[in-house]
């Protein structure tokens, strides 16, 4: 079984009682959005290339891609994949003589809120094969599972009897011991060994949720990051957990899942607990603040789906690029004259992203 097949079967296992397509879209709990990404490369030198992440291509009970449309003056475009995780992307290429390479991608998708009670067995939970379990407990370049990661994980899960208990212990540990650091660029690259060795446990979703995933994998619990984009305001009263404007250029957000026998894939988001603590008015709330406590309870087992899911990939080698691997693919990426553009600087790159909800 190849890696893509792993992901496909694993996602299928998490798609609880998937609704028929039109029925699902027509039901009141599904919402449909459009995200438009516009790229206009500034002062290109030589051949220019752009890679835009595409929405998760496999249907789940909480996310369905409806289609993507592109326009622009690229000489070559293609839909490519990283090959290992099935992270798909729109690739565009311009020759050296194009003064203003530009590209626009419109992606439509439907979502509905996702909730799994980790305490209750689910008959449709599915199982991971030994190969799948090995895949989702394996280390990545930025998420090792040996050394200090393993040692920390073993200390956290001591006495835990099953995967749910282990994941719960790690979730609580991450919430208790980390903090959201607003100075980190982008979402953070998730170098969890450095975080643990330095004792600096500050970061953003790319760091804190990667820490959850790494500790879980080191404890033998299958886990993965899911990379995406916030596209709408939260309807659960959390200003910090949504976007209030159509502009979502800087709204990238990653989440995490773990797999438990009899439960399937369980959504979690400890990084968002720390975001609530830092950012909900009046700010810098204590963990025992009722608003933080409610988020902490909710985010072990549920995701509000005001969010576009891209992929679950790590260590992404961009096809047709000689540049370094990316820890993950969540932002537009580009190169001009074989030089990688700064994906975290949309104003210089340059790219913009907008989102809107489509209502019948």
């Amino acid at each position, binding site marked *: 079984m190849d890696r893509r097949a792993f992901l496909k079967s694993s996602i299928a296992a998490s798609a609880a009682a998937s609704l028929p397509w039109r029925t699902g879209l027509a039901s009141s709990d599904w919402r449909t959005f459009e995200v438009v990404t516009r790229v206009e490369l500034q002062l290109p030198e030589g051949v220019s290339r752009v890679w835009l992440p595409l929405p998760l291509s496999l249907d789940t009970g909480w996310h369905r891609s409806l*289609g993507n449309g592109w326009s622009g003056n690229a*000489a070559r*475009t293609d839909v490519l994949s990283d090959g290992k995780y099935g992270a798909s992307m729109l690739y565009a290429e311009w020759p050296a003589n194009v003064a203003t390479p530009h590209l626009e991608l419109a992606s*439509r998708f439907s979502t509905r809120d996702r909730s799994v009670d980790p305490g209750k067995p689910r008959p449709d939970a599915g199982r991971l094969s030994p190969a799948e379990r090995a895949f989702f407990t394996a280390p990545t370049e930025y998420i090792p599972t040996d050394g200090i990661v393993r040692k920390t994980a073993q200390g956290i899960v001591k006495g835990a009897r099953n995967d749910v208990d282990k994941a719960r212990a790690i979730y609580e540990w991450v919430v208790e011991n980390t903090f959201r650091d607003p100075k980190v660029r982008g979402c953070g690259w998730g170098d969890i060994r450095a975080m643990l060795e330095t004792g600096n446990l500050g970061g953003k979703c790319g760091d804190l949720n990667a820490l959850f995933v790494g500790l879980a994998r080191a404890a033998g619990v299958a886990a993965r990051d899911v990379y995406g984009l916030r596209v709408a305001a939260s309807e659960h009263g959390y200003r910090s957990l949504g976007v209030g404007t159509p502009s979502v250029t800087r709204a990238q957000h990653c989440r995490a899942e773990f797999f438990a026998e009899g439960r399937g894939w369980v959504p979690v988001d400890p990084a968002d607990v720390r975001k609530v603590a830092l950012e909900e008015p009046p700010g810098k709330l204590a963990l025992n603040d009722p608003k933080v406590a409610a988020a902490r309870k909710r985010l072990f087992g549920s995701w509000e789906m005001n969010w576009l899911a891209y992929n679950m990939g790590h260590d992404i080698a961009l096809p047709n690029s000689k540049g370094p691997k990316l820890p993950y693919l969540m932002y537009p990426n580009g190169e001009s004259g074989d030089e990688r553009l700064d994906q975290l600087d949309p104003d210089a790159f340059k790219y913009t992203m907008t989102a809107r909800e489509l209502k019948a």
Partner: protein
Amino acid sequence: MRLALLLLALALPASAQPLKPWAGGATPALELTDAEGKLHRLADYRGRAVLVNFWATWCVPCREEMPSMERLRGALQGKPFVVLAVNVGEGARAARAFGEKTGLGFPLLLDPDTKTTRAWNARVLPASFVVGPDGRIRYSYFGAIDWARDDVRVAIENLLR
């Protein structure tokens, strides 16, 4: 109407990329009803060249290239060539309204659950495939193209020889 078609044609990208010779696998099945309820099977068009185009009303470049598909159809009138435009994920009403507004003379097929679109791996729209009279895909093109361009028409005519 003619002025509108001309303006849309001018809006097509200036790049003149040729159709890409198909190097992928076997031709996926295609069996869909059109906006008028008529069933179309790709297999029934054996002996004719077929332009299979995946589109949606919300996809601007899809809308922009469609008039050129109509012009290509006109240029190849009398020859064994058909256009099957597969609407991705929308309903009959939306497709029918678009067809009536633009005066397209080819069938607008419906793929509401997008299963056919996925089978053809048309993940980014517009996506087009030229199927030869033998039922094999011969060319593909991702993005908008001026289907009335001479080199495109000649490539398709060559399939009919």
